[in-house]
């Protein structure tokens, strides 16, 4: 085991570029949360958002500091704690909007355990997939990974929160893809997944089916679910090249756009900043991803690479699903846009994950 970096090394090796990109995206997020909540009952939540960012910065520092090898080593314990927390949510809380997702804390706010579980899953996958990369893989190793992954997955599905559960799939996929699995296995898994789609469809709840069919034809059902999609599309389209201007978007400011500070924050941004703005914003996200990927490639060991790449995959998936939803190319899922959407749990989770990536970068030199 390599020793933790000293203070001097910490600042020299700290990933200032990634931190800068994250900082810029977060600033854009705060400004957009402010604009989207102006004159609504959510007015002022951007200060809450800033508070979460401050806490998130602390967690980022913490996740950067504690050697990731220790975290990986301790991940089975974290996993067990996380699973118990998920079960507790399921067993002891009252449903909010028909789902049990929130665990109350003594500090007066609730946390969405499934968000933090993503971090644990990344560590677990890094731990066991790295093993696969060093020896011939056997059925038992796959079985362990399957249990570790699908046990929390199943609990989250039962909450029910299919979107969040599905959003963890990229972690497993990336972990397996980077390691021993021959490509033909991957093809087989992919085929099985495709075959499972019709079965999965039949098991979906009506509101879930409506989300999927609603996005295909938003004009079909104005005032219902299609209404959200349609209003999002109108907001985006009305933005044009240069946007309507800060706090000038009529769709956002007159509240035609649903949840403009959380799930649809990208639509609010697109209305007020236009195609020019979203191009710059997407470029920031793209550079951030590429920076993480570079960290993954230069990591000292397989665990480090897997951690970075899983974070990249997770972020890419969230960006794709959220922004694709706003562009009316993908169903409405309720997945937040990383680092921008208002909401503490997701923001903190993202910053912890990015802290882990920084951690990997800090310890990339094998002495």
């Amino acid at each position, binding site marked *: 085991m390599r020793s933790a970096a000293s203070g001097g090394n910490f600042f020299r090796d700290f990933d200032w570029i990634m931190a800068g990109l994250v900082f810029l995206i977060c600033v854009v997020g705060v400004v957009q949360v402010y604009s989207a909540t102006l004159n609504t009952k959510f007015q002022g939540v951007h200060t809450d958002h800033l508070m979460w960012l401050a806490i998130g910065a602390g967690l980022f520092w913490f996740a950067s500091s504690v050697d990731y090898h220790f975290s990986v080593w301790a991940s089975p314990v974290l996993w067990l704690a996380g699973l118990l927390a998920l079960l507790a949510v399921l067993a002891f809380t009252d449903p909010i909007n028909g789902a049990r997702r929130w665990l109350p804390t003594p500090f007066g706010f609730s946390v969405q355990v499934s968000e933090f579980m993503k971090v644990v899953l990344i560590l677990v996958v890094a731990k066991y997939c790295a093993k696969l990369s060093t*020896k011939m893989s056997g059925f038992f190793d796959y079985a362990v990974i399957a249990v570790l992954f699908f046990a929390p997955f199943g609990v989250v599905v039962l909450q029910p929160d299919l979107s969040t559960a599905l959003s963890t799939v990229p972690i497993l996929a990336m972990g397996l893809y980077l390691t021993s699995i021959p490509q033909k296995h991957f093809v087989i898994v992919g085929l099985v997944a495709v075959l499972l789609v019709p079965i999965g469809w039949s098991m979906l709840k009506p509101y879930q089916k409506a989300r999927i069919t609603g996005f295909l034809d938003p004009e079909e059902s104005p005032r219902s679910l299609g209404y959200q999609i349609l209003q999002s599309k109108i907001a985006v*389209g*009305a*933005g044009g090249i240069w946007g309507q201007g800060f706090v000038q978007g009529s*769709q956002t400011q007159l*509240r*035609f756009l649903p949840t403009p500070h959380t799930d649809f924050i990208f639509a609010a941004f697109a209305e007020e900043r236009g195609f020019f703005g979203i191009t710059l914003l997407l470029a920031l996200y793209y550079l951030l991803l*590429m920076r993480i990927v570079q960290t993954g490639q230069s990591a000292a060991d397989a665990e480090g690479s897997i951690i970075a790449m899983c974070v990249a995959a997770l972020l890419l998936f969230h960006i794709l699903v959220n922004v694709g939803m706003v*562009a009316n190319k993908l169903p409405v899922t309720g997945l937040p846009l990383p680092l921008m959407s208002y909401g503490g749990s997701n923001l903190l989770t993202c910053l912890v994950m990015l802290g882990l990536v920084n951690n990997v970068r800090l310890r990339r030199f094998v002495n």
Partner: protein
Amino acid sequence: MTWAPKMWGKLLTSRVMHFQIVASAVFVLLLLAFWEIQVANNEYYRRRAEENRIKTLPIPAARGNLLDRYGRVLAQSRIALSAMIDPAATSDAALPRIAMGLGLEEEFVRGRLADASEYGKSEHIVLKENLDPADLAFLAAHRSEFQEIALVEIMRRQYPEDAVGVHAMGYVGEASKSDLNLREYLLRDFGAEIGKSGIERQYDHWLTGQDGSLQFLVDSMGRELATVGRMEPVPGRNLHLTIDLDLQAVAELGLEGRKGAVVALDPRNGEILAMASAPVFDPNKFVTGFARDEWVDLNRDPRTPMLNRAIQGTYAMGSVFKPIHGLAGLEAGVAGPDFTAHCPGGMRFGGRYFRCHKRGGHGTVRLRQAIALSCDVYFYQLGHRLGIDTLSEYARIAGLGSRTGVDLPDEVTGLVPSVRWKVRHTLQPWHPGETVVVSIGQGAMSITPVQAAQAIAGLAVGGVWHRPHLVSHQQRALVEPGSRPEPPRRWPVSDDHMAALRGAMSDVVNGAGTGRQARLSGVEVCGKTGTSQRVSNDLRLRAGREDFEDDAWFAGFAPCSSPEIVVAVLLENGKHSYYSAAVARDILQVWLLNRSSSSRAAPEGTLARLGPGRM
């Protein structure tokens, strides 16, 4: 076999590259998707956003008022607070709750929307008029939920005098599907209030205003934030009728409880001073809506209250035809002073016995007595001498057998028989006996009360038959630019012949004639009574049915020497001209009173105030 670190590095490099490719592709695709929405279709979504935040409501225009010749209001507009629905913004799921909240049948609401969509009406349509406090409370409580519903002050017709003048004025109602297919209403919208009959329909384009609109900024809760645009409505223009409300009212009083019609007009220009038909109906019902049975009852009423008998009822003219017949005799050079007839109470002709109404007979009579006493035998003989074609020629000169051209829709023509007509329609030759029957205004000949008034009017002023009308020539020039008053039909009658006819018609009223009931002090009234059979006398007496009773006529004018007013009265089953002459007398009495009082402004004075716009 184990993986060497070198192999791991190689694997990692290739798979990281795969991820980079996938990630790049994702970002490119996302940018393309946004390009399509934001740049390529920017205009479309900008418009959609505008439609979202800009709500447009109609500001309904008031319909022009109908005024009598002195400016008294016959029909006006009032405000009705109404709930309108935006067909484009509503959803199927909301309809049952909206219907329940407003106390409407769901089927009705769906039907309205279906009709609106069938006629391509995409703006707001009226769901319920005259909202009550419960409706308003419901709408206030569900304002953000049912944003498709708007409260609008629409304008609705009100007839303050209720049924007075109803047949001439007509009534308005919401345009039905069949109305919208009519040429005159092609440009009107579904749900519009249109003239359905009478003046309301004839001059609908003049009376109808142009709705304005109000645009305001709303948020997604439907709250109105600011007004961004306003187009003022252009109200419809007022229309002065030639009707004199006083004469109209007294005419309708005279008809009260009876079936019949009255037309009073100015023989010098054809202006109609009163046009009444009985029984009447309440035109306000067409605006506020009928109870379920009322509409059916109104339509099935055997007394046909919806019929404007003045222009749509056809009747045998009876003895009122005799002055016209006399004119034909004079002009044809037959009925001179040396043409006499002996009336023993009847006459045998072609194997049939034709009775005079006076059993005892009139003795030997000339034209003057024949008209004054209404001797049938004289006219049997005169008609026989003239022949049917001469009779029908003069009947047509007097305007019988064709529409008078009064400015009302759906006037009927009546019938003046001739030899040609008989052969064409029955393939039978004309029998001379039929001429005898037509001679006293019976048989195949039928006329409308307005034709009777016009015929007597033309005669009264010496052979100038003006087109009867309800909108004066001055006003019509505004209403229908380019229209010129058509010249009256003229058949100048010599002074001798006029004197003969006037004298005879004066005797009817002022002498020993049949129309003594119409006599007035202060003005010399001329006239002619008539009692026309609906069925044969025998059948009438045997059956004893009310609707077989004779119709009673009176047509007269005053003053005799220079006529200013003509009154024609018809009472269906009126039994005796005694009654119809009395109705005419009452009208003339009021006319005389108003004429001698100086307080009344001249109609020209009222017209001078009327501009092309509103009053």
